[in-house]
């Protein structure tokens, strides 16, 4: 009973998150300006992190947690560098 319930709720949650990622990718392609695209990239990173956490629940393995943490870190650094680039025109001054 609980296995069936969890199977379906995890599946639906993953579909919802993937839809959210799709919308963010749409904004990434559409723009219109660079800051919109960077915001979209940041959202895609956060959604990928949440997707990995749900994947961990689906497989019952705690390994995905570390992958989620790494994706979160990479997203943070990437967005920071891109925003800095937008501000100054170069990342390393």
């Amino acid at each position, binding site marked *: 009973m609980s296995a069936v319930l*969890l199977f379906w709720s995890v599946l639906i949650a993953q579909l919802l998150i993937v839809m959210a990622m799709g919308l963010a990718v*749409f904004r990434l392609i559409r723009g219109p300006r660079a800051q919109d695209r960077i915001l979209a990239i*940041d*959202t895609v990173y956060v959604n990928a992190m949440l997707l990995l*956490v*749900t994947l961990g*629940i689906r497989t019952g393995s705690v390994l995905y*947690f570390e992958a989620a*943490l790494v994706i979160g870190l990479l997203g943070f650094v990437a967005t920071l560098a891109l925003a800095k680039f937008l501000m100054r025109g170069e990342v390393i001054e």
Partner: protein
Amino acid sequence: MMNAAGLPLWAALLTSFFLLLGATVTLIGCIGLIRLRTFYERIHAPTMGTSLGAGSIVLASIIFFSVLDSRPVLHEVLIAVFVTVTTPVTLMLLSRAALYRDHTDDSRKLPRSRDQD
């Protein structure tokens, strides 16, 4: 999904509820990313995913693994703390960059402000 069979029903219900809540909130945030008109409005949208969305998905994961292993599994808290601390940094830098660009390129894109200078 092999080892979820041993999970009691109440834990499965709680996990499902928080998972679906978090995923729905994240999706609404991304709908906002599409529907809102200006950049300054859109900057509000992803924070839904990083506050309530990430919070409830992490809570679902904590409930699931804690009940499954019958001991408190709390390392997912790190994800919540990490997201809460990093989101303001990136969004502040991004909105400042946007403000700077709007001031230099074309200031008519700036939204309504009380005292425009």
